[in-house]
């Protein structure tokens, strides 16, 4: 599958990683809901790490739609919280 880290780039990621990524994603959202900044930062970093480590960057001339898009790496807890309630970092 193709995963994009927003503002960073796209990666080919083995399908096997989908479950793990999904799991981390849901835990990260729970951390956001609990307002737990450290936990969110840690989980989000783990997601980024997974993609960067297992993934292969797409070539510049590969034009593919992403299956998954992760928020920008410098997303803060406040931004993430906003993301699930309001306009978020990408305006509606």
């Amino acid at each position, binding site marked *: 599958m193709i995963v994009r880290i927003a503002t960073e*780039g796209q990666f080919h990621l083995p399908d096997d990683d*989908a479950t793990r990524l999904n799991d981390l994603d849901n835990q990260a959202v729970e951390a956001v809901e609990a307002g737990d900044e450290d936990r969110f930062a840690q989980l989000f970093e783990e997601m980024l790490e997974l993609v960067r480590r297992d993934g292969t960057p797409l070539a510049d001339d590969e*034009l593919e739609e992403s299956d998954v898009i992760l928020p920008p790496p410098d997303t803060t807890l406040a931004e993430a919280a906003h993301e699930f309630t309001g306009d978020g970092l990408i305006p509606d």
Partner: protein
Amino acid sequence: MAGMGGRMSTVIKAKINKLLDKAEDPSETLEYSYQKQMELLQNVKKGIADVVTSKKRLQLQQQKLEQQVVKLDTQARQALAQNREDLARTALERKQFAQTELQSLDQQVAELETQQAQLIDKEQKLRSKLEQFRTKKEVIKAQYSAAEAQVKISEAATGVGEEMADVGLAMQRATDKVENMRARAGAMEELEAAGAFDDNLALGSGGDDIDRQLHELTSQSAVDDDLAKMKAELGQGSAPAPGELEAGSESAPSEERPA
């Protein structure tokens, strides 16, 4: 794609797709978008340059204050050597103030330096991202002119559209950060330009302002210490720490002058 129901990525993807729907024909807007992003990158560079300018002005003020501290210290010594303890005390009080200001300036300059480095890093990443975008743009333009299968074109258009949206997002975030930084650097400069420092260095500045009085209270003992040390060095009266610095009778007329 099966199994990707993570909420965070789903929300982000939905939002990016929303952006895509608005761009009807990516190929038409590709060139415009690229030019636009290049312009925005110039703005980011300009913002960084402004932050650097602010930092340089603060550094200049830093140097002035450092010189001021040295000068006031020398003046205090001279005053003391001529038995003008009152003048020496005033000079030392002003020196204390200058030192406090210097500390806060040091902090601000260091902070600007860190953030400047981060901004430069961001700018470089943006630049390479734009370069990537340029390549993708050329690919899709070539595909259009070669009139390949409609399906393939629309797939590619989606891919490049997503890239376009992402470049836009990266640019927007960088611009926000730079603007924020520029505003803060500007505010630091303004504070300095408004004479926040100079006023308090003016002789006999009759301050009834609470802050200044509080500051004087806390700096008083530092001034006393300075004065005592200087006296000891000059071999004058009530040396506080006998045995510490039995300064040779170098420059001082050794007339006793109780504090």
